[in-house]
């Protein structure tokens, strides 16, 4: 097992004829992902790396029985892409772009709940279940199959962690790029239950950062988990009131969203706190992984 994506994933790439879409379609196919269709308005009938292209998600889904989509379109069109996939009945949608307006994501978030779809991202590398499938743009060479599930707001901190884990011989069940935005389609508390009930996941690494309240909510859920959690909070020394590039990473002047508060709550909930990505393999080893 694993969560979200695996050998049964039948993936659509929205924006498949774009530079990024084409490049990463090839990467995903190479990794063994079943990319069954692509979508670009006006390019129906083409084919990209052998994958048939359709004008709309509905046609692509009807023709191929796709059950997931990855949205490789620019930020300003990301919400429209997600809506199209949701209305076509796609149950799992990965959004990738950085800099999606937060009002757009507010609409996507509430619509996804209404229509019963799971949206991952934006500002995310996507989802990878190492050795099985990937939907996104992560550099897959550093990932390895194994028992640890990872949820991360940051792509680069996740890469660092995975790289260190793989070198230490610790593999991953599924890694999810939750994304660095103020309103992600799915938050830590939406995803932790999936890892908790995944029989192939033995422990969870949660890579959070300053800003917002998602780590605080995660702490409440972690209290009742049977699986151990190792957590890292990035941005302890970020200047107050200044956005750090991730729209979501900002500490208010009153200290809301601070790293200290998040670490305290997570520690009280039973999570082990890593001070840097390099500490994570050692902490996992200590848990018997």
């Amino acid at each position, binding site marked *: 097992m694993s969560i979200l994506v695996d050998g049964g994933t039948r993936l659509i790439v929205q924006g498949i004829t774009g530079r990024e879409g084409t490049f990463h379609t090839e990467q995903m196919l190479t990794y063994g992902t079943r990319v069954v269709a692509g979508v670009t308005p006006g390019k129906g009938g083409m084919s990209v790396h052998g994958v048939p292209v359709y004008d709309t998600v509905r046609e692509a889904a009807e023709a191929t029985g796709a059950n997931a989509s990855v949205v490789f379109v620019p*930020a*300003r069109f990301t919400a429209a892409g997600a809506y199209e996939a949701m209305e076509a009945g796609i149950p799992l949608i990965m959004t990738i772009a*950085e*800099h*999606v*307006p*937060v*009002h757009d994501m*507010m*609409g996507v*978030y*509430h619509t996804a709940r209404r229509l019963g779809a799971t949206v991952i991202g934006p500002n995310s590398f996507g989802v990878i279940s190492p050795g099985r499938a990937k939907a996104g*743009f*992560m*550099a897959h060479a*550093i990932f390895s199959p194994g028992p640890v599930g990872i949820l*991360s*707001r*940051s*792509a*680069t*901190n*996740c*890469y*660092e962690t995975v*790289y260190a884990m793989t070198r230490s011989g610790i593999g991953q069940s599924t890694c999810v790029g939750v994304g*660095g935005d*103020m*309103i992600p389609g799915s938050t830590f508390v939406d995803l932790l239950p999936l890892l908790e009930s995944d029989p192939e996941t033995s422990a969870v690494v949660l*890579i959070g*950062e*300053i*800003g*917002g*309240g*998602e780590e605080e*909510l995660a702490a409440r859920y972690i209290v009742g988990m049977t699986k151990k959690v190792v957590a890292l909070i*990035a*941005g*302890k*020394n*970020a*200047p107050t009131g*200044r*956005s*750090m*590039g*991730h*729209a*979501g*990473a900002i500490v208010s002047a*009153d200290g809301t969203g601070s790293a200290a508060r998040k670490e305290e709550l997570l520690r009280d909930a039973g999570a082990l706190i890593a*001070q*840097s*990505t*390099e500490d994570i393999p050692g902490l996992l080893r200590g848990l018997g992984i």
Partner: protein
Amino acid sequence: MDLMEYKAKELFTACGIDAGQGVVIRSPAELDALIADIPFPAVVKAQVPVGGRGKAGGIAFAANTEELRERCVSILGMTIRGHVVDRVLITGRVECAAEWYLSILLDRTAKRPVTIFSPEGGVDIEQTARTAPERVARLAIDPLLGVRDYHARYLLTSTGAHGDPAALLSVLRRLYDVFIRYDCTLCEINPLAVTAGGSLIALDGKITVDDNALFRQPEVTAYRDSLAEDPFVLAARSFNFLYIPCDAAGSVAVMSNGSGMIMSCIDSLSDRGLRVRAALDLGGGATADRIARGVSLLLDDERTRALFINIFGGITRCDEVARGVAGALAKRPGDGRPVIVRFEGTNKREGVAILGEIPGVRYVEGLSQGVDALCERRSAL
């Protein structure tokens, strides 16, 4: 980005909220042409994107033209919490019977807009929430339903406020229009003056607009471009980099290719007592050309004493990174400031070989080794 009071009031007015009449000047010389439009007694207010300007002397009253000129001369050029006042707003003084507080902000946890109301306005809302929590109401707005008449009734009755629900509803609806139309994460009116006749006037305002939506907010973008800013921020923006000024007394500059990595670098350096002056996020897909621009931009700041480059590629090619560093340093012979580079990704071996031939550049294998290398040079930082 945070808008100053006068800009916030312009957007309020555009959506039909009464925010009073006012003029903005950048030099006392502009007064002569505008004096006929200014009602006395007048208020002169420093325009800065931070709070606390009243206590800092940035707000003053003027009974006549002469006083007005004096107040403008003394406030323009003043520094308030690090911001030099380059413009003031002049308005007529409003007599009010009560001062309320009203805002709409994006609640990240609820993932929806939330309105906050209090009949105890004119002070910091956090303060009212501590001293008189029963006088503060908080109400989530369903984005599918928008503002409804019962919202205004609830805000008034639940806080024990006396006022006309229709008047509050009208301002709340229009404030929600501002929130949606301008892609805001915060719209705040404080105080919202209640006049003796019962009408509501926005006496002060604050708006935060989502930076990611500026592409569809031409009016806000034009305003941003009119502000005097850190020249390094402007230079970085022209190359589509994100430049984050950190510690003005810091000496280490950090360059990386993702905001998570930047935060990790700043954390690791700060933990060892090193002070980060600025960080530059290259974003994804960094080519040699962009790396070179980033390096040049950070080294153009003479108070940068060392540069730490940390790139976790994946699909970024390390030889591209190395060529970028080489290209930038070739244009500054004899610069001498240490450049520490760490990268992971494709063509790492070729990249390391290129770096080995650049004087003053040291390659390290990981983030912590990079921090160690900077600590060794602590005396020069």
